[in-house]
């Protein structure tokens, strides 16, 4: 039993968006509808020559005090024993209460048209068989094979760091515990498990 979490090191993210592409192929997300499980925000501040540019990769924060879980009437949104917030595709009715409740823009609709297109592309290998609301799952199917999430494995700059927050030897534990990495919008009380090292 773990408590999986992630640290984003914004000092190293170069905005290549390879994570978005890797996640899409691994999880068959509907990139054809411009919908992704993870995004990279590209923010610039200042005026030339005192300009700063920050790349902020984001995804589901797998909050401990999960607002989307409370909002879901069917229990489709649930948390597994390793702290990963998951959606049971068969139980999701697509009411979007979770999308409204999420403070981190983590969710999107995997609708009927998306399922049809997915079938065209992936044939018998489809992983989304019915329409539902979708989001990052920390690649739980890869974790079951002792592999890191696709975005973490792909990132060329060691921006995404993944591990068990309860494992004292893990990088994520040390970074989160030391306060070097902080969660976003802490004031809301959602207790996210994704932390950020500012650039």
């Amino acid at each position, binding site marked *: 039993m773990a408590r999986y979490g992630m640290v984003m090191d914004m000092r190293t993210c170069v905005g*290549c*968006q390879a994570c*978005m*592409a890797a996640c*899409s*192929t691994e999880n068959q997300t509907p990139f*054809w509808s411009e919908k992704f499980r993870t995004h990279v925000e590209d923010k*610039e501040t200042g005026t*030339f020559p005192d300009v700063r540019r920050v790349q902020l990769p984001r995804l589901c924060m797998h909050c401990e005090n999960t607002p989307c879980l409370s909002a879901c009437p069917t229990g489709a949104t649930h948390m597994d024993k390793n702290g990963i917030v998951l959606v049971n595709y068969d139980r999701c009715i697509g009411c979007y209460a979770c999308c409204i409740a999420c403070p981190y823009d983590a969710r999107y609709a995997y609708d009927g048209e998306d399922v049809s297109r997915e079938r065209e592309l992936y044939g018998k290998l489809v992983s989304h068989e019915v329409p539902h609301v979708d989001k990052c799952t920390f690649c739980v199917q890869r974790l079951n094979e002792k592999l890191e999430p696709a975005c973490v494995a792909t990132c060329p700059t060691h921006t995404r760091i993944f591990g068990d927050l309860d494992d004292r030897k893990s990088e994520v534990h040390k970074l989160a515990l030391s306060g070097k990495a902080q969660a976003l919008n802490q004031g809301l009380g959602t207790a996210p498990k994704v932390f950020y090292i500012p650039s």
Partner: protein
Amino acid sequence: MTTVFDHFIEKSGPFTPDWAARITDVPAETIRRIAIEFGQARPAMVDPGWMGARYHHLIGQRRLQAIIQTLVGGIDKPGGWLMNGEYHHRSEKAWHNMQQGGEQHGPPVERPGMGFAYGLLDIFANPAAWEHGKPGFSFVWAMEQQKAGKPSAFLPAMADTGLYEAVKGELTFNGEPYRMKALIMNAANPVRHYFPAKRWEKMLSSPNLDLVVAIDVLPSDSTLYADVILPNHTYLERNEPLLYPLGPETGIGYTTRLRAIEPLYDTRDTTDILCEIARRMGKLEPYLEGIAEYAGLDPQVLRSEVAAAQSARKPLNEAFIKTAYVAMGKFSGTMTGRKMSAAEVEAVIREKGLLMLKDAREVVEEMNLPRKLPVPTMSGRLELFSPILESFARQAGQQPLFNPVLGYVPRMVTDQGDKNDLGANEFYFTYGKVPVVLHASTNNNELLAAVTEPKKGQFMGLWINASKARSLGLSNGQEVEVTNLRYGPKVKATLFTTEMIRPDTVFLPSAYGSRNKKLSIAGGKGTALNELMPYSIEPIAASFMSQEFTVSVRPVNS
């Protein structure tokens, strides 16, 4: 007696930090501070960067970077510039050959440094190297230009100089016509990627060109001009025919590409395409011999592997790679003292993705250039004085570009030279890559296009300083016309306003502007960089001078 070093100190006199500060906007105190810090850090490192060939003086810039690097002893030293494994290997081999007595050089691909360039000249610029008695077209052009006292290039080894003239029927060699009648483009898209677009459009549509063949995986702007398109395996379906050194890696190792999936359609490896063409011309034997010689393969093994592949109806590509494994097996013996069988080589490559024969630490230890081995220069040492540039100066006349010590070549953005007082909507121009497109060939990939969409401005737009845009009444996302004020061409672009660029400069991502509508995703999107470019080459390697102009930016009149 004055040394080269004395010459350098004298020649660098006028080029003070204050002089540089005026040109670069970097404060003189900063330049001084960095110079001192750099000089005292042992080693320090200049990062030379990529894609620099845009100005006449680029070779001088690279040379100066190397000189600075040498002055702090940062050559082939951890923390400085490390030569790659292949360079070490070739240098050691050349040194070894020389010690054995004589100039037996081996194939040009195996010679280090300038030896490689001269080796190429010996083949492509040497009429005696060819049955028909004529050198390569780019060298013919260079020689003829020189004879006529017109601007030429000294080492147009990979240039297209003379090609258009040969197609047009205007090129001669020693009074004889030098015609170009057929062209094979292998995984090349010159209409979109070479400079300028118009030159290649005209060339490929010339009535004098009887046959244009394109080997490609996708429709491109160049396949539109092909008489025959031969469909190629994609990178996932492709086996390479040879083993290759590891690029910038300091250790000595080799790798190749092996297919991830079986070919899905009726396509071929390039090797098979070229071998089949050679076979139908009745020239397969000499072709195989030539490749074996060029690539260091055993011609016997190659011939028998090819025969075996032919009778088993297997792709010939496999024959080549098998021969390459045999050659590598033998070669590894010379490196590690233990020969490997072809099967062992293949097994290591399949398992690890590469075959390491000597790691970086060992190479830097045992083959250090110049601490253990002579550098492939005339003196065997790192030379700051450039005999090559001096030879060019002797041929083409003294000028800063060919100064063998130090020559300052000012920026030229007009026919008269530099320009510092820009007009109201006049800008310096620069271009570069974006992370979502590889070699400008993946812009049709649906997934990458989807990932590009959220950052369409940054990745596809013409970058302009936001404050400057406002002062010109221009806004983000606006369509504009960009005119090359020195050479004339115009293109349309979409503005991306940002503070991440100087107010006097605009930047264009280089990977878009495909016109072929058969490219369902990329066709018709973005701005084609090479439609803004002139045909302007520098006189050493004939590389394109792609930023020696200014541009104007104005709204498109709808």
